[in-house]
């Protein structure tokens, strides 16, 4: 049973570019959440997708957008990259939106913006 997978593992971009990160949830899970983890800090919630719709959003600008596909996989898109977007981006999946449901995390994508 595959857990949460993310691609790519590492990514290097320059300021102003656009990036797309991908996430496949754990088998049976239908909800995907994205987090940004800056170096030395805890993860910060970006947004959550369920039934192909954004259900909740954290305090992130519109440059951050996402999508969920019918197979429950998800993408995170960041436009007009800034140096401050350099971080580890974590994807987590769960079954449903309820807070009681455990979130399983992927290994993350390390994004470096030069």
């Amino acid at each position, binding site marked *: 049973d595959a857990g949460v997978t993310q691609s790519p593992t590492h990514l290097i971009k320059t300021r102003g570019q656009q990036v797309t990160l991908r996430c496949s949830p754990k088998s049976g899970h239908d909800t995907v959440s994205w987090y940004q983890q800056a170096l030395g800090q805890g993860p910060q*919630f970006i947004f959550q997708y369920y039934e192909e719709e954004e259900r909740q959003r954290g305090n992130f600008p519109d440059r951050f957008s996402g999508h969920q596909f019918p197979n429950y996989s998800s993408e995170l898109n960041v436009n007009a990259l800034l140096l401050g977007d350099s971080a580890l981006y974590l994807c987590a999946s769960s079954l449903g939106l309820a807070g009681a449901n*455990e979130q399983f995390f992927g*290994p993350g994508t390390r994004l470096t913006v030069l």
Partner: protein
Amino acid sequence: AQTVTQSQPEMSVQEAETVTLSCTYDTSESDYYLFWYKQPPSRQMILVIRQEAYKQQNATENRFSVNFQKAAKSFSLKISDSQLGDAAMYFCAYRSPWGDMRFGAGTRLTVKP
């Protein structure tokens, strides 16, 4: 807004000894969930233990246990018989019934042989 505070950036423990990691949170809600996650150098966040706010009994998972003080809004993690494999970043997290997960800044735990 809910906030989570971990006041110990780093902690150290001798192998086989016991260590306690602290966490406090701020909320006006009565129903919520609390979690401790472990993040080793491999970066993968792993759930260590969880606590439902409506349960008075402290959660326990093998060598890991919590001290949940709802009135004080405190949620500490105790690791007994520490092992070298316990070395990692530990994050305390809060989640409301239908809300997002809020994490603390983390505590780096070092285990000395």
